[in-house]
Structures are given as structure tokens and as C-alpha cells.
């Protein structure tokens, strides 16, 4: 890795449609992908709702941007950390989340899950290991 590559973590803490944070976070991630940095995303608190499947936004008149998460693998964003405690507190399980996959170029392009459920303690370590943490 060259000196100019930093580890970026985008932390998503808010539900997808009540405020604009989730959508504008995703915009940063997609633009940032062009900079060849090491990019990971974290979902905690109400941010775990961003990844739920079968989102339907017709009733609120907002664009459903949840399919974009499934395209992140093409942008080399392959690690989406989801906090176990945040899921538990909201009565959610991994089954409630979208099946998001990426193709592992180091393993004959095998399809692998991007979502990694981690504990709150592990999430702390992941954050401590970053160069730049942007929280949304």
C-alpha cells in the first residue's frame, strides 16, 4: 500500500428516511470510492435499519436508495460491519437485512457476504483501527 492510502470508516447511526444523513453518507462513499482508499462502513444504533430488506418508500415520497448497498461491492466496499447489540435492541436479526455480496478477487471471484455482524466491543476496536472516521 502506498503512503497515500488511508483507512476510512463511514459510521451510519440513523434510520434511512427520517433524515437525510443516510443518503448523503452513501453519496460520500460512492464518490470516495474513486480515490482508491481503504473504505469500510459501520451500521449501529438506528443505522441498522438502513440495511433492512423489502424497503418500500412509496408512502413517504422519498427515493428508495437501499438497492445501492448491493452495488457497493463493485466499488470495492466489501466490509459492512453491523453491530449485534443494535440489531438485538431493535428486534432485528441478520435475516431481516438485505443479502449483500461482493466478488472476492483473491478467491477466484467467489461471491461472499459483505455484512459482518460484530459485537459492540469489536466495533470499538474496528473504529480504533481507522485513520479517518466520518459519522453520519
Amino acid at each position, binding site marked *: 500500500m502506498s503512503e*497515500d492510502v*488511508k483507512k*476510512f470508516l463511514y459510521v451510519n447511526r440513523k434510520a434511512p428516511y427520517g433524515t*437525510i*444523513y443516510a443518503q*448523503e453518507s452513501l*453519496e*460520500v462513499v460512492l*464518490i*470516495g470510492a*474513486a*480515490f482508491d*482508499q481503504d473504505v469500510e462502513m459501520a451500521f449501529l444504533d438506528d443505522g441498522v435499519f438502513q440495511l433492512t430488506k423489502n424497503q418500500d418508500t412509496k408512502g413517504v415520497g422519498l427515493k428508495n436508495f437501499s438497492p445501492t448497498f448491493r452495488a457497493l461491492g463493485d466499488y470495492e466496499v466489501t466490509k459492512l460491519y453491523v453491530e449485534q447489540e443494535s440489531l438485538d435492541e431493535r428486534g432485528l436479526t441478520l435475516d431481516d437485512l438485505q443479502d449483500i455480496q461482493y466478488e472476492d478477487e483473491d478467491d477466484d471471484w467467489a461471491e461472499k457476504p459483505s455484512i459482518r455482524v460484530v459485537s459492540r466491543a469489536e466495533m470499538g476496536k474496528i473504529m480504533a483501527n481507522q*485513520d*479517518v*472516521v*466520518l*459519522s*453520519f
Partner: protein
Amino acid sequence: MKFGIVVSEGPYTHQASDTAYNFVKAALAKGHEVARVFFYHDGVNVGTRLSVPPQDDRQIQAQWTALAKEHDLDLVICIAAAQRRGLLDENEAERQGKDANNIAEGFRISGLGQLIEMGIQADRTITFGD
């Protein structure tokens, strides 16, 4: 130390732009460098020159403009966030067929790439927001 600053909440509604301003001022006074201040989400509203706060209140936009002039700061407003919220410079107003622009002196409108670039260049990136 070279700092990168993100302001992600709107002026007057939220403390973020005030705290960021005081932080930047203090950091510069201590001899640190501020690579850039990036205004995102409702933070872009700091950069309108059309705000007219009461005279006995702090003048948030004017403070930033003065600080930028004094220290040659790079105050960048995110274009995507700005377009949603009605923040335009002369070029954008013309390009979008709008009859006015409102960006304040000392601010410039640019892309999200400037946020990433700031994160790469700065030793520390600090977000002021919720």
C-alpha cells in the same frame, strides 16, 4: 498538526458551526494548520450571504468569512448538499437557470471529493455535528 474540519449541521439551529469556528480559531492561534473546512448536510447553510441574524447575536457567516480572509482558509461547501438546499454561486446559478446566487465571500462550492482529499491530507479529521 494539520486538521481537516467537517461541519455537518446548520447555523443557529445547532451548535456545530459555532464550535467548529472556535476550534479552528484556537487551533490556528496555537500554530496548527487547517487544511480545509468542509460544510456538508445542513452545514452548507453557513455559507449564504443572505442571512440577516439579529445584531445582538453572533454573525456566523461573517465570522467565517473574516477568519478565512485572515488565515487564507479553504471553506468548501458540498455541491450536492448545496443544490438541494438552495446554495448557489454565480456559475451554478447560471448553469441551473436560476435568477440569483447567494454564496458568501470566502466560501467556494465544490464536490465531495474535496472531503475525501481533506481526509487523506489532514493528520486529523474532526466532525462537528450530531
